[in-house]
């Protein structure tokens, strides 16, 4: 949202959504009945979740991308096939057993 137009539109929308509070409301029973509860929930929820994920979970859970073994290096998404096997080669082509294989696996592809 780099453009000024975008900022203005967002600003107007923010104010507009707060104006929706003005029509008659019943007396608050639950916490979410108070004015602008959802505006605050949006901001605080966003900050809380970001902190939980990036601040608490990320340092503990992040691993390098080849943690479970090397990633497929080159893959042609357009034909949906690795360079060797054509799309109509059916179940006959066995997946290449790359070096540094993380776990043992059956020798033959499940044709």
């Amino acid at each position, binding site marked *: 949202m780099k453009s000024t137009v975008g900022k203005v539109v967002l600003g107007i*929308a923010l104010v*507009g959504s707060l104006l929706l509070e003005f029509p008659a409301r019943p007396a608050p029973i639950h916490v979410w009945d108070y004015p602008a509860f959802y*505006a605050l*929930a949006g901001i605080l929820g966003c900050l809380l979740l970001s902190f939980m*994920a990036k601040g608490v979970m*990320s340092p503990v859970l992040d691993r390098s991308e080849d*943690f479970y073994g090397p990633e497929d290096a080159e893959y042609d998404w*357009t034909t949906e096939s690795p360079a060797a096997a054509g799309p109509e080669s059916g179940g006959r082509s066995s997946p290449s057993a790359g070096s540094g294989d993380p776990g043992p696996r059956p020798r033959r592809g499940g044709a």
Partner: protein
Amino acid sequence: MFGAFPPGLILILGGLLLPLVPRAFRSWAFLAPPVLVLLHLSGLEHGTQATWSFATYELIPLHVDPLAMVFGWIFALVALIAGVYALHLRDTGQQVSALLYAGSGLGAVFAGDLFTLFLFWEIMAFAAAYLVWARRTRESYGSAMRYLFVHLFGGSLLLGGVLWHLSETGSIAFTQFEATGAAWLILAGFAVNAAVVPLHAWIADAYPRGTITGSVFLSAFTTKTAVYTLARGFSGWDVLIWAGVLMAIYGVLYAILVNDIRRVLAYHIVSQVGFMVAGIGVGTALALNGATSHAYTHILYKGLLFMATGAVIYATGRSRMTELGGLFRSMPAVFWFYMVAALSISSAPFFSGFISKPMTIVAAEYADLTSVVLLLHLASVGTFLSVGLKVPYFTWFGDEPARPVKVKPLPWNIYAAMGVGAGLNILLGVWPDPLYAILPAGPVEFAPYDLPYLKKGFQLLLFTALAFFFIVARLRPKPKVQLDTDFIYRTSGGLAWNWTVLPVVRFFAWWERFSWEAAGAVARVGQDPAGWLRRRFGRLLPTPPAAGQAYPGTESAALRGSMTLMMVVLLVTLLTFMVRALF
């Protein structure tokens, strides 16, 4: 049309016949079975039942009621849309397994008994695994095998529960369960497919590794079939409320971290299914209607999300946000299609999620579950944060990646399918009445466009966006993978393999080699036993004389004659003794 024929079998038969269609028409022929199913469903009346006898059991492959019909309609519809999305595909294996997969999903939904359900449940696991495997890379191969193992484990839990239930009650009818041990086992089987935390890791493992079109199918059937079975058998079970809330929060937290765009969506399946599971747990009419309608809209917008991200991957060859960015100039249409789905999943007003998700939350409000309501709101914020803001920001805007992106043109059918999906999401958002009319738990007492709900929808999303733009730099994805519960079986899998499978494999390999060598040796000996004996024990035997010559030392005729006589006497004596002994 077709009378009381199970609609799932139409897709399955279509899938089996598809390879016979000439290749040039095969993609188009793919669309015929879903269209036939839609026509068939329009003629099915509630209460219709088909029964087949199997051994001493009456199987019910078709049981039509409002709950099954909602899922039936959306399954057939999404199979058709995904079929259009896959029109450019020339891979018979994928097309056949997609039809088998959709067909078994439909079959499970219309199954009236637990055996039929289990049968379709297993077909679904195999067909889905093929859609991951069909990418035919080392990575997707491993992922598909793990998918299969996890789902066969879930299937065994289900079968164990069904047999236990049968032995206790004598019934295989699929109805609401009482809280027995058998029911808990069945619930665990369903929970695997519903991706209930901590049994959810297969979804983030497999769905980002499926083929582009395969993952569109995958996003629709497995988890929603499980939602259907939970709604049918376990509505009102309190444990589901908290399982659902945990899923809703857990999914969004991981989605904030992950880098692969389709993995973000996979974690959001966990989160969104969490809303449905919580709704089923609340179990009131409004909550059940909310969960069912949310499953319906979820299939529509999640399919569109996977179609749009698939289009990005198809065009750029990349799936990680760290390698994408600045695509808006080259792929604006895909961006807008994506945003329709993203606003739908975030339940923005006038999009499909808005008519279903708030219904579930309001049901929890009416049930006075204050903390559940607050946590579900928090999950809603997280949904918009990662699907509605983070993914589009780092894919279509943000910095261009270091390695420049080449964008290939997309086939027309991809745009067509996304257009239909986006149109349906908006249509349903502004005109929910047709969906509300078919919901299973009676008339819908919920009007999404009342002012309080509009206010809630707008404020939650707009202020989340405001906060996002302040912290966007901190949300930049990292080129990392995150540990999840699959860590347990992906690292210990090797150990288990070494200790259980390998010894067996090695024993049989040894036995096989031994048998072959033994057979070879016997054959060699049998060809010429005397020669073998001579070669083996030659040193112990006298050298045979030349032809016509006697053995050395036996030249005397008298000696030969007396030896012959002795031999005859010996043999006759022996024979006499044998005859005496026997008779």
